[in-house]
């Protein structure tokens, strides 16, 4: 551990969270016990699309130990249906009505149909097996294109078609302006030297954290409903449960366990299962507990990406990008999922399609189609994994047509001056893309690589180098968050000083491994001039923390920490004012007092000082003889909202070797260049990058949700839904070229959320570069040796 009380921000402080986690004392959801808790097990649909003819629960009900069995028909008049406003975006879309359990028909393989509540989990599982459901199968709508075809079966049968959402991101709100805009873009295409037109597809894959979802609810007539829930946004869950179950919000307390085994987006929606569990806990007046199995998890959630993009790029022969046109199409699944509805990811993916390139003009439209699959649920690199794959590949294709280095085309077209408004109205607040890029190129040694590549090729070995880059959201400003999710973007923190000179921080968001306790403790210790071990952090309990929209969109380093720092500054001023009064320093202003090394010191005379504890204790415990208008006590809640939406930026390079006889490839190196602004904890930042890039690689190379022709999901275990292991992935070299963010008090940026997004493009670019002699373009994910081998074979056959 290094760092002084002056300099905790940026110091190598080992995480506070770790001790409990490495000694087995973490408290995850499954570790929380309530006396006599009952266990719930869901009966899930065997069919992708079918009418429910009957549900026979008699055998299940008769089993010893079974307390209750419920079906959709039992609850549909008891629980209000979704959507409810707090979990419905302010975007024009069609929102499918649904309850926690299927009513009338099932719309995907794995949809909850009924549930058993029993005293013992094994008995509950046996009883769920004993439920007999009689189905009448309906045609399976298996992909977005067939969902939109003429005569397609309509999944939500009261809808006119299978479109949940569609949007023109560039042409304005009305038909007329859209047509005019299209024509303008067409003119650029008509006169361009080079036009690339390509379909890019990205498969269904996602995050699958190591801890599955879970919930434990109990009801008490006087206190109301208390729920422990795996969640990234407990405050939103609380409001949504209040609306659905018609329980006053003040009678609901949601507690996200202090330790959560990863979230990455998948614990951010308002899901169906917790609604039912909360309802049953109230109805039975007994605690009810659910620990999702891995099979349920992989059937129901963690499925994202799944987009097709017909992308066109117009460029000049010198590599200058002139225009972009994209028609995106996403396979949403059934869309029955609070907050996201399966379409917000493709929405944001389209917003972020232009990436950091300076496009003069563009025409971008997206459609999102309902199918008989589970609804897309968010995964880190929210929506943009497919669009960034398409964009980064397209840039390399432009470079090839121009006979230029892909690296040069990128540098030439990077947004050179910030702030910048993208063609999809994404605001880039600050940073220096060129500096980040040049730092990467210094690491990459492109001429050196080209020389070794030529040598290797002479020996019949195929080396390649690939580049990619990404602008990522650093928090989500209200300006975007209110329309997108009907939720505020501000970060909130309560800082409470303890009479003994320690600090308690309360955060309404709910982390799952990102190290918030350490990061904010460093920021607060830095501010007060104390030690991070003297800062205790409470997260995710709606009973004690200020309102926050959740741990999403890299909000911690940007918004939450900034709120905590603002609260500290507020309290410091108060302490300083009272100290100036006590010392009769009529001239002194709060700025004359420094907080460092455990002391509050009058800077104009360093002999005048108090320990931090004395200064704090005075205000909290002895509120007499205060300056006029001043009150005792030291606690403050700050709500931080930056003036403008903020971003972080990165660029990546990787090198590979491909075996053309087998299609196998090996990643030889991976280096990143990052602008994360002022770093608070370097190890945590590096950990986020390592983890995010490996998730991106795992998505690109291994993971894929597969449905058969009848919609049976074939990949609901880790044997078939394969995650990268330690032996599958490289070590990543993380380098920095920071520009402090001018809109946050520390200059920090939020990081980590979007970071997997440029991984598939970077890797595929390297492989296409290696296979340059064969002219191979990778346009589909996942990237698998067998499909690569077939491409190589075809190219060799053709030549």
């Amino acid at each position: 551990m290094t760092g002084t009380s002056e300099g905790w921000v940026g110091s190598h402080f080992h995480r506070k969270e770790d001790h409990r986690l490495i000694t087995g004392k973490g408290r995850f959801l499954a570790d929380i016990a309530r006396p006599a808790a009952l266990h719930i097990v869901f009966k899930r649909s065997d069919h992708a699309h079918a009418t429910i003819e009957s549900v026979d629960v008699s055998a299940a009900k008769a089993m010893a130990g079974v307390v209750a069995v419920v079906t959709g028909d039992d609850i549909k008049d008891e629980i209000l249906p979704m959507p409810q406003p707090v979990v419905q975006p302010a975007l024009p879309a069609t929102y499918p009505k649904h309850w926690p359990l299927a009513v009338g028909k099932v719309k995907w393989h794995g949809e909850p149909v009924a549930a058993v509540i029993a005293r013992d989990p094994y008995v509950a599982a046996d009883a769920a097996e004993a439920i007999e459901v009689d189905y009448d199968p309906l045609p399976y709508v298996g992909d977005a294109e067939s969902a939109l075809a003429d005569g397609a079966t309509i999944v939500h049968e009261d809808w006119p078609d299978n479109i949940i959402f569609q949007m023109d991101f560039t042409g304005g709100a009305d038909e007329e302006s859209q047509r005019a805009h299209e024509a303008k873009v067409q003119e650029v295409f008509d006169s361009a030297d080079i036009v690339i037109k390509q379909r890019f597809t990205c498969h269904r894959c996602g995050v699958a954290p190591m801890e599955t979802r879970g919930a434990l609810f109990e009801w008490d007539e006087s206190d109301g409903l208390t729920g422990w829930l795996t969640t990234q946004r407990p405050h939103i869950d609380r409001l949504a449960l209040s609306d659905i179950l018609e329980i006053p919000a003040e009678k609901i307390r949601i507690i996200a366990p202090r330790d959560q085994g990863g979230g990455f987006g998948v614990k951010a929606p308002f899901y169906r299962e917790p609604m039912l569990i909360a309802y049953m806990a109230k109805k039975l007046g007994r605690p009810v507990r659910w620990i999702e199995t891995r099979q349920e998890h992989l059937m129901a959630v963690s499925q994202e990406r799944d987009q097709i993009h017909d992308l066109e790029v117009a460029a000049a022969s010198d590599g200058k990008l002139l225009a972009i046109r994209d028609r995106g199409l996403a396979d949403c699944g059934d869309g029955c999922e609070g907050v996201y509805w399966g379409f917000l990811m493709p929405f944001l993916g389209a917003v972020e399609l232009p990436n950091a390139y300076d496009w003069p003009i563009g025409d971008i439209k997206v459609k999102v189609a309902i199918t008989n699959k589970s609804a897309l649920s968010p995964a880190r690199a929210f929506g943009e994994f497919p669009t960034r794959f398409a964009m980064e590949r397209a840039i390399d294709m432009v470079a090839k047509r121009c006979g230029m280095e892909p690296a040069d085309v990128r540098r030439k077209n990077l947004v050179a001056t910030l702030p910048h408004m993208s063609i999809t109205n994404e605001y880039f607040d600050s940073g220096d893309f060129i500096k980040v890029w040049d730092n990467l190129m210094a690491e990459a040694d492109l001429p050196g690589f080209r020389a070794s590549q030529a040598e290797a090729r002479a020996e019949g070995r195929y080396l390649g180098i690939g580049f990619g880059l990404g602008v990522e959201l650093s928090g989500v400003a209200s300006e975007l968050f209110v329309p997108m999710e009907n939720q505020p973007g501000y970060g909130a923190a309560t800082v409470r000083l303890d009479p003994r000179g320690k600090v308690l921080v309360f955060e309404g968001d709910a982390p799952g491994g990102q190290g918030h306790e350490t990061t904010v403790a460093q920021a607060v210790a830095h501010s007060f001039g104390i030690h991070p071990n003297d800062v205790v952090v409470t997260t995710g309990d709606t009973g004690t923390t200020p309102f926050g929209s959740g741990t999403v969109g890299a909000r911690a380093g940007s918004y939450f920490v900034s709120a905590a720092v603002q609260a500290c500054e507020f309290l410091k001023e108060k302490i300083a004012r009272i100290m100036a009064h006590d010392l009769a320093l009529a001239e002194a202003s709060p700025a004359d007092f420094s907080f460092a090394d455990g002391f509050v010191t009058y800077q104009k005379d360093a002999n005048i000082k108090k320990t931090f504890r004395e200064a704090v204790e005075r205000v909290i415990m002895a509120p007499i003889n205060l300056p006029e208008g001043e009150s005792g006590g030291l606690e403050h809640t700050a709500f931080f909202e930056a003036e403008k939406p903020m971003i972080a930026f990165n660029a990546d390079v990787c090198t590979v070797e491909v075996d053309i006889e087998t299609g196998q490839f090996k990643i030889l190196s991976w280096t990143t260049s990052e602008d994360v602004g002022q770093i608070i904890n370097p190890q945590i930042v590096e950990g986020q990058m390592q983890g995010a890039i490996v998730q991106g690689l795992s998505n690109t190379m291994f993971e894929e949700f597969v449905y058969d022709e009848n919609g049976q999901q074939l990949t609901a275990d880790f044997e078939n839904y394969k995650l990268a292991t330690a032996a599958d992935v490289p070590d990543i070299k993380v380098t920095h070229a920071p520009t402090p963010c001018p809109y946050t008090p520390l200059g920090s940026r939020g990081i980590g959320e979007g970071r997997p997004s440029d991984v598939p493009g970077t890797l595929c670019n390297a492989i296409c570069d290696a296979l340059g002699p064969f002219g191979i373009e990778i346009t589909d994910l996942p990237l698998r040796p067998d499909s690569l081998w077939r491409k190589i074979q075809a190219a060799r056959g053709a030549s």
Partner: protein
Amino acid sequence: MSTTTITVTINGEVFEETVPVRMLLVDFIRERAALTGTHIGCTYEGVCGACTVQIDGEAVKSCLMVAAQADGHEITTVEGLAQGGELSPLQRAFNEQHALQCGYCTPGILMNMDEFLRENPDPTDDEIRHGLVGNLCRCTGYAHIVDAVRQAAKETR
């Protein structure tokens, strides 16, 4: 539900318990011994390694056994790694190298790598990575885990 009575020692403490024959060892450890450091990540597929404990010093996935099979054996769980309140070099290295984020996979990895280092006191990075294939980690990307195991190896040699 048929039951059986077993005697197992966990972290030096003897448990004599009557358990359903089908009770998995991981459930026994978590529910009967109330040692919740041992986790369940893949719900008994034996793939994720979060449930790894040591039986008579050998790392095993405790979801792949029923409790009855552990009758008469000595089990060490993550709670038994630190001796007298003192973290083991491997545990310390995990903190110092930031080898965990959410920490859900960590107990299983520690129990596996603790045995691995006894068998391989001077491993290469490649050997460490191959030693880790039975443990999935979704957060770290593994690089810092490799760093931590390497550090512990160096300190223990």
